[in-house]
């Protein structure tokens, strides 16, 4: 299990996170939602060990993440960041191969090549493998970085047995993974993430679209001003009241028979230019 225990993170006098806990269990997709600046990315960065919180700790299999070597941790969890800078014009293939770096010294082995081919195919970027990443559109680049993240965790055995359970739980941390993706690939991405949970991966994803949360997440943590507002099964906790509290927006939740899940629609007029009047 990847666990954030009572995390408080403070910069100066500002508390970015205030006593927030989150457990990522193998086989579950946990969504983190909340308004801009609510502390979602800070929480994810704490989980990925990028931030050492002021109070509380993050543990993987009941050991503090800071006890793991960087290379060991890289084989257990992968991070799809919100911003993915790239200083030099690497090709798509070279960038996805970087996901395999924790697995080989020197030259990539047959397993590494097989995994990279598999994830290129899975994310639909095989045909652009030789193009330079900076020449791609934003959404295409996002798929390349997704492929890199998948390549980092998957093994050749998993590809050979597409339905088997993985031996040791691994974790995917996704910060707004659907950014820039078209409608098809938003669903394709979350479908891949969900398929990974069936195999024993744990997924934590920051999602802004609450309808996607309803559709794909097993649990959701709603943050407000660095505190946990509610957490639980999306259909239970995403009530109009909770959403108004978190985002300041009145919504209706529509549930039609024949539809797979409830649907959230705003009911409030915002009057963009008359608010101050």
């Amino acid at each position, binding site marked *: 299990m990847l666990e954030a225990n009572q995390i408080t993170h403070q910069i100066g006098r500002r508390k970015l996170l205030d006593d927030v806990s989150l457990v990522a269990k193998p086989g579950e997709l946990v969504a983190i939602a909340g308004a801009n600046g609510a502390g979602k990315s800070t929480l994810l*960065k704490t989980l*990925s*060990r*990028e931030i050492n919180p002021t109070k509380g700790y993050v543990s993987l299999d009941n050991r503090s993440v800071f006890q793991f*070597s*960087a*290379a*060991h*941790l*890289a*084989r257990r969890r*992968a*991070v799809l*960041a919100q911003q*993915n*800078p*790239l*200083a*030099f*014009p*690497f*090709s798509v*293939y*070279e960038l996805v191969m*970087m*996901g395999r*770096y*924790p697995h080989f010294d020197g030259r*990539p082995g047959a397993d590494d*090549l097989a995994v990279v*081919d598999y994830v290129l*195919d*899975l*994310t*639909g970027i*095989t*045909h652009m*493998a*030789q193009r*330079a990443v900076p020449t791609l559109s934003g959404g295409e680049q996002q798929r390349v970085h997704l492929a890199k993240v998948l390549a*980092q965790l998957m093994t050749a055995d998993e590809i050979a047995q597409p339905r088997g359970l993985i031996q040791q739980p691994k974790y995917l941390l996704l910060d707004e993974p659907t950014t820039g993706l078209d409608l*098809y690939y938003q*669903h*394709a991405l979350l*479908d*891949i993430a969900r*398929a990974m949970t069936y195999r024993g991966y744990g997924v934590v994803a920051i999602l802004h679209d609450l309808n996607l949360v309803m*559709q794909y997440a097993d649990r959701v943590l709603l943050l407000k001003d660095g505190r946990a507002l509610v957490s639980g099964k999306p259909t239970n906790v995403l009530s109009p009241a909770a959403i108004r509290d978190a985002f300041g927006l009145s919504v209706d939740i529509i549930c039609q028979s024949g539809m*797979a899940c409830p649907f959230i629609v705003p009911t409030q007029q915002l009057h963009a230019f008359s608010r101050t009047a």
Partner: protein
Amino acid sequence: MLTNVPPIARTMTTTTFRSRSRGWWLTGTLSLLLGLVVVWSVGVGAVSIPIPNVLAILLKQLGWAGASVEPQQEAVLLVIRLPRVLLGVLVGAVLGMSGAAMQGLFRNPLADPGLIGISSGASLFAVLTIVFQVKLLPGLTGQAGLYMLSIAAFVGAVVTTGLVYQLSRQGRTVQVSTMLLAGVAVNALCGALTGLLTYVADDAQLRTITFWGLGSLGGANWDMLGVIAPLVALPLLLLPRLSKSLNAFALGESGAEHLGIHVGRLKQAVIVLATLGVGVSVAVAGAIGFVGLVIPHLIRLVAGADHRLVLPGSALLGAIVLTGADLLARTIVAPAELPIGILTALIGTPVFLYMLLQKKSTITT
């Protein structure tokens, strides 16, 4: 929902095959070129030695008794030419590779080892030595006295880079962007102090300072090579082992960390190795500009961004260019010699500008 992402026609692994063979092709061609330039340039000079004779002399040295050689040609080649050409190969290789590694570390294709004070520090200490004529250290005579200028320049490179490194440290981490700014400041300070020393120097010293600043491989001999070869070999052998980490570093510090790279250790290793390599080169050959900046650029144009190709490629091309430039430097105004720094800048500037304009046009289209 979308339980199956639609299969997309597989083009299989021709991709890896291509990039791997491209790597062999590149290093193979460059190695061959380097061999040619070396053999050619040891033959050219006041005493001309035809290429068959060059090969015969080299074969004799390797223990092949059958080769017949002319004693005069043999002496010129072994005592004068060969050490100088080998010095050019070593200095060019280490400047090219250190430049490529620095650009990787600063995540900026316009970075140069000079940015963190290596060259300006070396210059300051060299000028100090010239102006005060090492009278402060009267005990140093013989071999050490002869190399005083080189030793001072190397110490200057290390001290200045160390200072820049310390200035940009916050606790246990070093900010690369702060390092750039600290480098600019320390470079300015070294420049001012060097200027001040130039102001008090006499005419003969001024001449020495100017020529030192333009670089030359003229001081080469076997003793010097024996000292610097192991020092230069360290970065040349160890930097390529950091290629993967430097690739990952292009994703930013947190991106590299997520891939399991020990970012702090990587930064230290690159800075120490590049300072060693460039510091030694500046110490024995003076400040030779543009090689560290332009060569990696040229390699990237052909080989792409992968440091596993860029680092060895830059070393090979650096060696070729510097050996070629030195050949020009010592023949173009013979029997006099042009400082090699003038030639590298004269050739480097138009090439660099051409590349900039090319890049601009690929960005806008």
